[in-house]
């Protein structure tokens, strides 16, 4: 059975510093929620509050509709996977996995059956008699997962479980975690600083910053409609280009004039970004353009909301499937993602084409989406 989780005005202070500043969050049973944010934003603390490894300063934590503020971790029907795996070094893999069942006095044959099931599922059945020190990083990761899975709790908590793995293994394990979730259907709360992990795994993402949740929505919404500059800048790699500028009108059309731009470059807001309220002349704004919405002119069929401009290429960064072109507008570095065959040489003038239909507009003072 999967349980929902509700956080109700949760606050947490360590000494005089407030780390969690009033968080409300409602997680449905069976959801895969990723808490993502830069280091120090409070995401791991929030997970520890759900686990009961930290006590809330104020507010309520509810698991399965029950207030668990005063319930110790072992009685919350949760299991947790830690960043450092936290395997018990003196116990064998088998004893690591069954420890939780031992302390709960699960009958021996039930323990064996559960162990056999999950060891097979995670492909660690040949490692059961080894000590954690004799395992590779990926194997330790699997054992840590096995230890969490075997008890079949209502909620799984993951604290940056993949950050100690090398890149290739991380992608493999990411897929496996997603498969496991689809198969078991348990509620998962997953902490990471890796926005790609967040995008790929989550049914919903909570973007955290400085003790607050900035936005809680499904991955597509987070990516396509970020509520503010922080969310827009955090999600996406390379990050969204942020162009500070001023609004002006001409012939019934709204334009953004980039600050400090010597070239005659002005971005027409003819997509949804130009439909907002209060787009008055002279208003200070930030124009957000994702790198993949800027490409080589003529590389794709021209759509309705295209804007063409020319700028010299400063740096060329091939990644394989795409090539990043770094150029400047108003002294600020911007990145365009182009097809490798369209790449130019550094220093050469290049004709860029922007899909203004995907442009985002933010208020320069508040950072809020307009």
């Amino acid at each position, binding site marked *: 059975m999967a349980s929902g989780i509700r956080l109700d005005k949760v606050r947490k202070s360590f000494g005089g510093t407030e780390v969690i500043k009033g968080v409300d969050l409602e997680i449905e049973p069976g959801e895969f929620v990723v808490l993502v944010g830069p280091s120090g934003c409070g995401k791991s603390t929030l997970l520890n509050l759900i686990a009961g490894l930290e006590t809330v300063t104020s507010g309520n934590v509810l698991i399965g509709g029950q207030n668990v503020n005063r319930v110790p971790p*072992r009685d919350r029907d*949760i299991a947790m996977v*830690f960043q*450092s795996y936290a*395997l*018990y070094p*003196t116990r064998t893999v088998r004893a690591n996995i069954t*420890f939780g069942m031992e*302390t*709960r006095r699960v009958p021996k044959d039930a323990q064996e059956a559960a162990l056999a099931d999950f060891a097979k599922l995670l492909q660690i059945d040949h490692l059961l008699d080894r000590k954690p020190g004799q395992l590779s990083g990926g194997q330790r990761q699997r054992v840590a997962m096995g230890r969490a899975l075997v008890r079949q709790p209502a909620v799984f908590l993951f604290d940056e479980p993949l950050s100690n793995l090398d890149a290739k293994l991380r992608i493999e394990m990411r897929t496996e975690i997603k498969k496991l979730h689809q198969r078991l259907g348990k509620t998962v709360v997953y902490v990471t600083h890796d926005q790609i992990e967040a995008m790929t795994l989550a049914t919903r993402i909570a973007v955290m910053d400085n003790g607050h949740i900035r936005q809680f929505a499904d991955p597509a919404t987070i990516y396509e409609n970020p509520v503010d500059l922080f969310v827009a800048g955090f999600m996406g790699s390379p990050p969204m280009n942020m162009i500070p500028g001023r609004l002006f009108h001409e012939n019934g059309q709204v334009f953004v004039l980039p600050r400090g731009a010597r070239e005659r470059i002005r971005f027409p807001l003819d997509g949804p970004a130009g439909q907002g309220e209060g787009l008055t002349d002279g208003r200070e704004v930030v124009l957000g353009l994702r790198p993949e919405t800027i490409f080589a002119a003529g590389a794709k069929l021209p759509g309705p909301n295209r804007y063409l401009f020319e700028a010299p290429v400063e740096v060329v960064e091939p990644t394989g499937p795409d090539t990043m072109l770094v150029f400047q507008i108003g002294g600020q570095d911007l990145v365009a993602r182009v097809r490798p065959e369209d790449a130019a040489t550094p220093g050469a003038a290049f004709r860029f084409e922007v899909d203004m239909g995907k442009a985002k507009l933010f208020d320069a003072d508040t950072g809020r989406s307009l």
Partner: protein
Amino acid sequence: MRARRTDGIVRASGPGARLLRVLLFVVLGLFCLYYLFPLFVMVSTSVKSLAEIREGSFLALPRAISFEAWAKAWGSACVGVRCDGLQPYFMNSVMMAVPAVLLSTLLGALNGYALTKWRFPGADIVFALMLFGAFIPFQVVLLPMARTLGQLGLAGTVPGLILVHTVYGLAFTTLFFRNFFIGVSDGIVNAAKVDGAGFFGIFFRIVLPMSLPAIVVTVIWQFTQIWNDFLFGVSFTVGDSNPVTVALNNVVNTSTGVKEYNVDMAAAIIAGLPTLLVYVVAGAYFVRGLSAGAVKG
């Protein structure tokens, strides 16, 4: 922990370097001799007969090896008015040192665990105060301790001495274990909490088995301290309950009869053997554990 090989490092060669190396080993050899010399004198004197000691030089090798002095020191030398040798007092020391070492090590481990893994407000102050205990000169506590033992009805007994050594050993054992546990990941304790184990469950089933190096270091340290202690032994025990160190003093410092150097030497070696044995058996662990604690603390 795997020992890192350093013997593959490229060294300077040539006559100058070779000369320096020879010089290095000569100096090391001299220091070694200087250090081992007293032991040689003790061992060789203990197997000589009294006549040979009187006639010959104390540097000379024994002409004939005899273990009579050893037998006497162990079984029939006079300690005060009792002439049963060191044996009963040696047993006193064993009866005192073994429980005192085990108790102070276990309690120190528990302290270190609570101070690092179940942190409470004021934990650092408590630790600082305990550390202070490591620097108190023991002469200061003799009188209050004597009074306490008297009130508890333990004055002049081996259990009384066990209590004293356990209490005054706690400062060091707590320090050793705290510094070891501070290097143990909190995640392991958190994982065990989520897995359903409590304070003592985590301590005995997860944390204590992990701390074998710290246990070895602490046991060696405590055993050496407690076995070699003279001050508490002479202050808090009387006659039959004396530890071997006090008895040794009584054998050697006797003012009556002939001075039996061979028996004195044998008795001193007997009194020192257990600590020597512990060092030899667990010496490798000792060095490894000390440096591990130093790095992690």
